[in-house]
């Protein structure tokens, strides 16, 4: 698999007649295939905009993005876990997964396997309206893996959950990734979460336009990531900007 290349020269939002508001400037990075990269930055600094550009949802910028792909001419497959679960309420949990998948993936029974894996096998024929936020987030996670992505974009997918539920989902994410590796861009404003998950943390500045101020490789094993003292020590480095 090839690397992900992000090279955004400038991103503006037209805000008013007197000019445009530049939110991103000179964001350049390359991520190796299979890397788990966290974007860390305060709320409103442009992290979501960055993910929308990488996903192709936002094309109004100058620069380029090259997604990591398989060998040959197969286009790279992308999955996006939005900040809200974004499940279609008029389709069942299982249908929500099937809609995103190819016929081949549906035929292989991938959706049922993943719903079992996230512990929602018994509600797969229910409509999403009856699910709690934590359960909906698990469906959203299962849907992302159901398309067998080369690159997985995640926009603060575990916010507004209690810490135990959020930690459960983080462990679930790591388990799914160990079975189906993908390049991950994970956006968060929570440095603890970034350290627990990321192999690399890219810190974005709290200013407009934002750019990259730090780029850390995190060399922790799974035990260290659960060690509060080690996580806190690393946070000191990250926060002491």
């Amino acid at each position: 698999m090839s690397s992900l290349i992000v090279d955004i020269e400038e991103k503006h939002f037209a805000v008013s007649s007197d000019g445009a508001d530049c939110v991103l400037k000179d964001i350049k990075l390359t991520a190796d295939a299979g890397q788990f990269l966290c974007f860390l930055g305060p709320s409103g600094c442009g992290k979501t905009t960055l993910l929308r550009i990488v996903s192709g949802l936002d094309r109004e910028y100058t620069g380029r993005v090259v997604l990591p792909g398989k060998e040959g001419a197969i286009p790279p497959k992308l999955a996006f876990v939005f900040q809200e679960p974004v499940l279609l309420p008029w389709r069942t949990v299982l249908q929500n997964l099937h809609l995103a998948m190819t016929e081949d993936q549906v035929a292989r029974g991938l959706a049922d396997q993943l719903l079992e894996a996230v512990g929602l096998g018994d509600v797969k024929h229910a409509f999403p309206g009856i699910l709690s936020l934590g359960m909906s987030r698990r469906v959203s996670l299962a849907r992302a893996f159901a398309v067998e992505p080369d690159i997985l974009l995640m926009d603060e997918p575990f916010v507004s959950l209690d810490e135990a539920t959020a930690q459960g989902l983080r462990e679930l994410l790591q388990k799914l990734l160990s079975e189906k590796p993908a390049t991950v861009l994970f956006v968060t404003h929570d440095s603890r979460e970034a350290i627990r998950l990321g192999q690399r943390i890219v810190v974005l500045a709290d200013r407009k336009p934002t750019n990259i101020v730090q780029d850390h490789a995190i060399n922790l094993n799974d035990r260290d990531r659960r060690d509060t003292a080690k996580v806190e020590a690393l946070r000191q480095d990250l926060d002491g900007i």
Partner: protein
Amino acid sequence: MSSRVRHAAVLAASFAVLLLLWQVAASVLQTRALPEPARVFGVLVSGLASGEITYHVAITLGRVFVSFILAMMIGSAIGVALGLMTRTNRFFDPWLILFLNVPALVTIILCYIWFGLTEVALIVAVAVNKIPNVAVTMREGARTLDRSYQDLAQVYEFGALKTLRHVIVPQLAPFLAASARSGLALIWKIVLVVELLGRSNGVGFQLHLYFQLFDVPGILAYTIAFVIVVQALELGALQPWERYAGRWRQ
């Protein structure tokens, strides 16, 4: 279940009282202008038996169906487009208000003049009367479309057909139901007028005929046959579809 039985009982009682009032009024007044229910139902039954009523109702039903489908499709397309494109909407909004306010009779007469006394003229006249109403309702619907579902469909590459069927139409379903219901009610009535003015068959033509003959039992028999068909459509097609489309709302 018992509430459904009670509901049916109320419905039956309601109709029974109406019939009774009719019967009393007819017996008291003793006039050609208000025949007794039994006579009207006699005409209805013989009309159904001879196939005359069935033939004309079927003709009208076919016209209603074609103009309804046409008006819903064109009106929805225009409405959704206007709802999504603010600038286009600003330009075409006055047109919509204009067409909304053109009297049905004007459209009908002009269509017959332009296209002759033909089936096409009838269909166009009825559809043109209904399209602005559908467009206005669907424009409101399009404004409620949720951007995040659109993003979802784009990221996961649903494609145009899947997006339409699983993302857009379900969001528009309440608006589609509203314009279908008001549309059916309007189209039924307009079709009769259009038939009366320029066709030689259909319920509207028959009503005109019986009007000239001053045959009130005939007029009422056609009215009853017609109302029953409309009710059957509402209960047998529109309401079940609405229940099916809304089943996810617990």
